[in-house]
């Protein structure tokens, strides 16, 4: 964690007055991000190596779309201890102990509205495929001996080059303003505790294939983890909000198939790498992902 991140958050919360003794805390501390809170102000240290100009362009999108994305408190990142730091208002996240209360409709509607917004010129590419490629590269480097690794690497190799971040996506797949890393941790109510839901985390936001943003719930559903009813709520709300990633009706899977396979391989790769480093077996959900990867490349047999 950058040494001065807490002080930075305090200064952002009280630009002109001494701190009266606010509630503070560390909300997240991972290799790719550290997030601290001071009263109603949040400071985020972005991943080491984050390009300041690209981050500034992504922040500008959030500042311009406060009805969709949580707007930053300052328009540009600050360099602190070699990291890019941004400040945000505090929001209330989805309760991880109650995923059944997940706001699927809000997530889908906000995503559809984001996808319908024309991307500003100069915005970098959405980083979804790049993150999937990084997860698979890490699996290959750190867990090549795990019995599931060959299964995942085969499923990865069967994906088209654009989904592996090796080529730009074909234009016919669409080029929309995308979040790039949509999951239930990317939603907060602002103002807390009962304001409207907003999307957070612009690190992967950019121009890309919009179906990528639907692919995580699609993958969870396909792997038998997300109940069909919750998947249908998400899908129905996205279509009701005229999200451009999917045809208005009919089978969504021709569009979802490649991104959902990529996200399944990504999540499975992260799970297998973590399990190996922790010296523990895969649990039921992780096995479901690996099994799905196995079916992606299995030869079709049977009598049909």
């Amino acid at each position, binding site marked *: 964690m950058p040494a001065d991140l807490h002080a930075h958050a305090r200064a952002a919360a009280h630009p002109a007055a001494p701190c009266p003794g606010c509630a503070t805390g560390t909300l997240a501390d991972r290799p790719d991000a550290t997030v601290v809170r001071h009263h109603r102000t949040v400071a985020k240290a972005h991943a080491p190596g984050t390009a300041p100009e690209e981050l500034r362009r992504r922040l500008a999108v959030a500042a311009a779309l406060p009805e969709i994305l949580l707007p930053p408190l300052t328009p540009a990142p600050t360099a602190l201890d070699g990291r890019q730091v941004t400040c945000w208002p505090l929001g209330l996240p989805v309760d991880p102990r109650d995923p059944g209360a997940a706001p699927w409709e809000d997530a889908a509607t906000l995503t559809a509205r984001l996808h319908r917004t024309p991307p500003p010129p100069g915005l970098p590419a959405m980083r979804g495929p790049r993150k999937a490629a990084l997860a698979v590269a890490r699996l290959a480097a750190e867990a090549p001996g795990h019995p599931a690794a060959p299964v995942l690497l085969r499923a990865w190799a069967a994906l088209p080059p654009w989904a592996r971040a090796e080529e730009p996506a074909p234009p016919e797949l669409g080029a929309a303003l995308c979040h790039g890393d949509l999951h239930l941790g990317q939603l907060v109510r602002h103002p807390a505790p009962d304001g409207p839901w907003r999307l957070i985390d612009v690190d992967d936001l950019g121009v890309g294939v919009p179906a990528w943003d639907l692919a995580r719930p699609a993958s969870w559903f396909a792997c038998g983890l997300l109940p069909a009813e919750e998947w249908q709520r998400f899908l129905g709300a996205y279509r009701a909000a005229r999200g451009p990633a999917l045809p208005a009706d009919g089978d969504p*899977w021709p569009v979802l198939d490649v991104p959902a396979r990529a996200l399944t391989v990504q999540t499975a790769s992260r799970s297998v790498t973590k399990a190996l480093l922790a010296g523990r077996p895969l649990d*039921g959900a992780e096995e479901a992902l690996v099994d799905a990867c196995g079916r992606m490349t299995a030869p079709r047999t049977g009598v049909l």
Partner: protein
Amino acid sequence: MHCPKCHAPMHTYNRNGVQIEQCSGCRGIFLDYGELETLTRLESQWAQPAPPPAPGAPAWGAPHGGHHGGHHGGHHRPRSFGRMLFSS
């Protein structure tokens, strides 16, 4: 009963509800009327491929009603799925 071929005594076994007479001498097997059809039916059930994925799901999806149970309620979410819902 004695084997119609070598006349050694035959023993009766029950396999998956099918009565089978096997000769203790030549190991030949005698089936009653309808038992061959019953065995054929059991065999085809055994060899049947996994049930297809639910409608509106990809070919690589979990079989409909798969053992992970996600399609039926979801209140038994594995703990790691709870984490997956909230992480990259």
